[in-house]
C-alpha cells in the first residue's frame, strides 16, 4: 500500500493528482522551483520541498533532486503527472532501482513506445493497423519510389529521428517524389545527424481520435473508449470531447480492442493512451502511444465515471483491475476546453503576469481543474495553461450550450486568456454539427478570430466605467487633501444607507 506520494510536477496536474491522493488517505509531497514557492500545489500538499532554480531543467527535470526529496520525505511512490519526466524511461528505471514505486509504466514500455519506428514495428506484429508505409528506415531512393507506388499517393516522407516537422515532406504528385526524398534526407541530416527517412500514407482529412486504456500488472487491460482531439492549433489540442461525433459503435469496439492489444504488445501497465489517425471513411491507423496521463483525461473520467489517477495508484500498488470491459459504459457527453494564458488577438502570444481578478464558473455539469488564484503571478518558465474546464451533459448539443455558459461566467483579468477564442469555437457551425477534422481551426480562422460584437451601448459602458473610476479617484484625492469625504464612497456603503433613491 502506498502511503506517501511525491508529485513530480506543478500547476493544475499536480493539484489534480494530490486531490485523489487526499481522497485515498495518501499524503502528498510537493516539489517546487524558485518561481513556484507561492504556487498552489505547494500550499495544497501535506509537505513541500524546494528542488532548484526556475528553469525546468534545473528543477522539475532534475532527477537527482527529485529522488533526493523522495528519500528525505519518505515518499514510497512518485507520480510524474504529464510533461516533465512522465515519459522518461531513465526516470522510471531510476525509481525502480531506488525502490520507489513509479506511478506509470515500466522503462521497457516507455522506451518501446518512445521510438516511433520501433513502436510501429511492434504494432504491425500485434496486428494493430498502422498508417500504410515503410516499417524500416529507407536509405535507398529506388526502393523508396517502389514503396510509394505500392502505398499510393499522397504520402508523407518523415525523418526517422524526427519531430517538430523537420525532415518532413508531403508528396502529392509522382514527379515530385525524388526531389522530396532528397530534400527530406538532407534536412534530416542537418537537423538530427541522421538521414534515414520513412514513408507514410498521407491522410487527407485526418481526425485525431485516441483511446484511453488501463492495464494492471497481472495482464488485465481494458479501454475506456475514445476521445476526439481534432480541434488543434499548431498540433496542440485546444478542445477535446467524448464520444467522438465521428464514431459508431462497431468501429468503437474494433478500435478499443486494438488499443488494448497495442498496450499488451509492450507489456503495459498503468494508464495510457493509444492515438489513432482516422479518415472521413472511418479508416483508422495507430499513430503513437502516450505512456502517461493525458491533459484531456477528465472527459473520460466524467463519461465513464472512473477516477483515472486512483486507478493509476491502485495499479502501481499491484492491485488487480476491478473494472470489467463489459461493465464499462459511456454515459452522456463531455467536452474539455484548455484555458491558456495567451492572447488570441495577438497570434496567441503567451501572456504571463499577475492574476488581478478571477471568477470561476460553477454549477451543474461543470468541472474546473485549475491552480491559479487572485494575486498569483503566472511564471514565465512553464506551460501557459491556466486550467481545464470540463462540462458534461446528457447530449452533445446540451454539452456545447453548457460550455458556452461556463465560458461566459469564467472571468480572469490581469492577463489575456484564450476564453473568447474558445467561446467562438463553441459557436462555429462545423463544431456544432460535429463535422470537423484537424484542419478545423485553420479552415475556420476568419470566423474564430472575429470578435463578438459588443455593441455601441456596451462600448459606452466601458467608457463610462473608466470615466467614473478615474473621476472618483481624482475626487477622492482632492477630498483627502481638503479633509472632505469623497463622493466616491458609494463603494460598499450602500448597504448601510437607510434609503436609496431610485428611478
Amino acid at each position: 500500500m502506498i502511503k506517501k506520494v511525491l508529485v513530480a510536477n506543478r500547476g493544475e496536474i499536480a493539484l489534480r493528482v494530490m486531490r485523489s491522493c487526499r481522497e485515498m488517505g495518501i499524503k502528498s509531497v510537493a516539489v517546487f522551483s524558485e518561481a513556484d514557492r507561492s504556487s498552489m500545489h505547494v500550499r495544497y500538499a501535506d509537505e513541500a520541498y524546494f528542488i532548484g532554480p526556475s528553469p525546468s531543467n534545473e528543477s522539475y527535470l532534475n532527477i537527482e533532486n527529485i529522488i533526493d526529496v523522495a528519500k528525505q520525505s519518505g515518499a514510497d511512490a512518485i507520480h510524474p503527472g504529464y510533461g516533465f519526466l512522465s515519459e522518461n524511461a531513465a526516470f522510471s528505471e531510476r525509481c525502480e532501482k531506488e525502490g520507489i514505486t513509479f506511478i506509470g509504466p515500466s522503462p521497457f514500455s516507455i522506451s518501446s513506445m518512445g521510438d516511433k519506428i520501433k513502436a510501429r514495428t511492434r504494432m504491425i506484429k500485434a496486428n494493430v493497423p498502422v498508417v500504410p508505409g515503410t516499417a524500416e528506415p529507407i536509405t535507398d531512393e529506388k526502393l523508396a519510389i517502389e514503396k510509394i507506388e505500392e502505398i499510393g499517393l499522397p504520402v508523407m516522407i518523415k525523418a526517422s529521428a524526427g519531430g517538430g516537422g523537420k525532415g518532413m515532406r508531403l508528396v502529392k504528385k509522382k514527379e515530385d517524389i525524388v526531389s522530396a526524398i532528397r530534400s527530406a534526407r538532407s534536412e534530416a541530416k542537418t537537423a538530427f545527424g541522421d538521414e534515414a527517412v520513412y514513408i507514410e500514407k498521407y491522410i487527407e482529412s485526418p481526425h485525431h481520435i485516441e483511446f484511453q486504456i488501463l492495464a494492471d500488472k497481472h495482464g488485465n487491460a481494458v479501454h475506456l473508449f475514445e476521445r476526439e482531439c481534432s480541434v488543434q492549433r499548431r498540433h496542440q489540442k485546444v478542445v477535446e470531447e467524448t464520444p467522438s461525433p465521428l464514431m459508431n459503435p462497431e468501429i468503437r469496439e474494433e478500435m478499443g480492442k486494438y488499443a488494448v492489444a497495442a498496450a499488451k504488445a509492450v507489456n503495459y501497465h498503468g494508464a495510457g493512451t493509444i492515438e489513432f489517425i482516422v479518415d472521413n471513411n472511418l479508416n483508422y491507423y495507430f499513430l503513437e502511444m502516450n505512456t502517461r496521463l493525458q491533459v484531456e483525461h477528465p472527459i473520460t473520467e466524467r463519461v465513464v465515471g472512473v477516477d483515472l489517477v486512483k486507478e493509476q495508484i491502485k495499479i502501481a500498488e499491484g492491485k488487480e483491475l476491478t473494472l470489467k470491459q463489459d461493465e464499462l459504459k459511456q454515459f452522456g457527453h463531455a467536452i474539455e476546453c484548455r484555458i491558456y494564458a495567451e492572447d488570441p488577438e495577438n497570434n496567441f502570444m503567451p501572456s504571463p503576469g499577475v492574476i488581478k481578478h478571477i471568477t470561476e464558473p460553477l454549477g451543474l455539469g461543470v468541472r474546473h481543474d485549475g491552480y491559479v488564484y487572485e494575486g498569483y503571478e503566472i511564471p514565465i518558465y512553464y506551460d501557459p495553461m491556466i486550467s481545464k474546464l470540463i462540462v458534461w451533459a446528457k447530449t452533445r448539443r446540451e454539452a456545447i450550450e453548457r460550455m458556452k455558459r461556463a465560458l461566459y461566467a469564467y472571468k480572469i483579468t490581469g492577463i489575456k486568456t484564450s476564453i473568447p477564442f474558445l467561446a467562438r469555437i463553441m459557436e462555429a457551425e462545423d463544431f456544432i454539427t460535429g463535422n470537423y477534422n484537424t484542419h478545423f481551426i485553420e479552415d475556420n480562422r476568419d470566423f474564430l478570430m472575429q470578435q463578438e460584437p459588443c455593441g455601441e451601448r456596451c462600448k459606452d459602458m466601458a467608457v463610462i466605467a473608466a470615466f467614473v473610476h478615474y473621476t472618483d479617484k481624482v475626487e477622492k484625492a482632492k477630498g483627502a487633501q481638503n479633509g472632505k469625504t469623497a463622493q466616491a464612497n458609494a463603494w460598499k456603503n450602500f448597504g448601510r444607507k437607510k434609503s436609496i433613491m431610485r428611478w
Partner: protein
Amino acid sequence: MSIEVKIDDHTAKVELIKREGNLMTVRVDDKVYDIDLMMVENGVYSILSDHISYNVELTEQEDQKHYNVNTLYNAYDVEIIDAETRYKQGRKGDDVDDVKRIFSPMPGKVVKILVEVGDEVKAGDTVIIVSAMKMESEYKVQKDRVVKEILVKEGDTIDGNQTLVVVE
C-alpha cells in the same frame, strides 16, 4: 465638467450630468444614459442601463490614466485624456519615438542580444530575442538605426513594456 476618453481609435466626450450615490446620468458624446453603476469588487463594475445588466472589469495601468477594460467578450484599451495628457500630446514630436525603443509587450527572459552599443543595424535586423513560456520572440528594428544603449543583459528577467534597447 466633461473629460475626453479615448477607446480604441475613437475619442469620446464624457460628462457627468447628475449623480446620487450609484445612480447617475452620464452623457457620452451625444447620448445620455441613466445608469445604476456600482463597484462590486475591486475594479469590477456592475452597471444597469435600461435594466440591462453589464459587467465591466478594469485593470488600471501604473499612470492611472490607461485602463484595460473588459466587457463580456471584448477587451478595450481606454485612455483618459486630461490636461496633462493633452499637454504631452502637444509636444509629442520632441519625445522619444516608440520606434527608437525596443521592448517586449510581455514579461519574459532575455535569451540573446545580437547587437552591441554603437552597432549599425539595418531595417528588419533582429536586435534581441526574448522568451516567455516556451516561445521565443525576435524583436527587430523597423528602420536603419544605430544602437545607442542596451539596458539589459542575457539571462535577465524583464517586465512587459520595459525598454530593452535604445536605438537612434
